[in-house]
């Protein structure tokens, strides 16, 4: 079969500052990753990784990012991700780092992993939450997620967004 094979890197943006995630933009992120690859792997890295590179999914509230790259060069991209130390947008610089959660060959496998991960995160949020109102919202999201097994990940990320919005 002749087709281009890709690797999808599912990453989470971890930062102290809650405003850092809100300033995420796919173009800014793409430029940041490309610059880091150029810094770490030089001209060859920058050229090799730029062919199939794209930011496929971005969730501003939970900080989840899905990057696509070609299968031959995914290790170059992956090995440059730990060297990202800050995110710069509109003159503000926020220190942060990327944590790779999963590497998949298709978007569907990454989505399946993301659904399980979000479910676990909701349970952790439920343990740590302090307010009654938050607890109600999160419990509703958890029951919805268990009920809608097999449905798309959008429902779950919506639940996560609501929960994080009420938390903040």
């Amino acid at each position, binding site marked *: 079969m002749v087709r281009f094979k890709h690797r999808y890197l599912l990453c989470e943006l971890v930062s102290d500052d809650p405003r850092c995630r809100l300033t995420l933009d796919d173009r800014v992120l793409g430029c940041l990753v490309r610059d880091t690859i150029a810094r*770490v792997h030089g001209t060859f890295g920058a050229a090799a990784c730029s062919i199939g590179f794209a930011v496929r999914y971005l969730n501003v509230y939970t900080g989840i990012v899905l990057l696509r790259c070609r299968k031959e060069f995914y290790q170059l991209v992956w090995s440059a991700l730990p060297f990202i130390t800050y995110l710069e947008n509109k003159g503000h610089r926020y220190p*942060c780092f990327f*944590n790779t959660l999963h590497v998949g060959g298709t978007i569907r496998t990454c989505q399946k992993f993301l659904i399980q991960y979000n479910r676990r995160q909701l349970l952790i949020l439920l343990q740590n939450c302090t307010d009654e109102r938050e607890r109600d919202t999160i419990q509703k999201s958890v029951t919805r997620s268990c009920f809608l097994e097999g449905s798309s990940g959008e429902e779950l990320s919506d639940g996560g967004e609501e929960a994080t919005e009420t938390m903040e």
Partner: protein
Amino acid sequence: MAVFADLDLRAGSDLKVLRGMVETAAHLGYSVVAINHVVDFKEKKQEIEKPVVVSELFTTLPIVQGKSRPIKILTRLTIIVTDPSHCNVLVACTHLDVDLVCITVTEKLPFYFKRPPVNVAIDRGLGFELVYSPAIKDSTMRRYTISNALNLMQICKGKNVIISSAAERPLEIRGPYDVANLGLLFGLSEVDAKAAVSTNCRAALLHGETRKTAFGIVSTVKKPRPSEGDDDSLPACKKAKCEG
């Protein structure tokens, strides 16, 4: 499969920062962390500072992401030896009673690794440690880190290597899969790189535990002492004699 471990978190003076670092490590998926106290033996008779008591740091230990057990926190002492006449790396490999030999990355290594002492060290079960947080901060450090690491790999062929962060702040720690990938940059193979974050760390910890035991088989455990104002604290044999 062995659990992921980060065996080097630099202990600063601020407990809050340390707490943040341990929580970040738990969130990223590390099951074991070791708080590192660094001692420099430049002046003679320097006092070794007291290690951080874990119960003071946390009342409830944070739970590791993805597992249901809380994180395990250990403490560790690192001694910097700069005087080559006093103690050489070769001597450390062969004679000193240590668990890990840390490869400094702040400058180009002035000596070359020789294969015989390194082989002796591997037979004794010593691990070689590479740190990656200078590489993240500075680009000249990155060059030295990678060159020293590649040098080490050529001699030891990737056996008994562990990679850890000498992190001073919570934002300098990276996730275990990212660190395993950094191992690829340092010249390890994929299997070795993953082992560098999991199995070899566990091996180093067990090596440390066996120093308390006799040949690694018998170990003594301190019995907790009963409280002072307790009248029933007569030892059981005496009690039996009185009653019998």
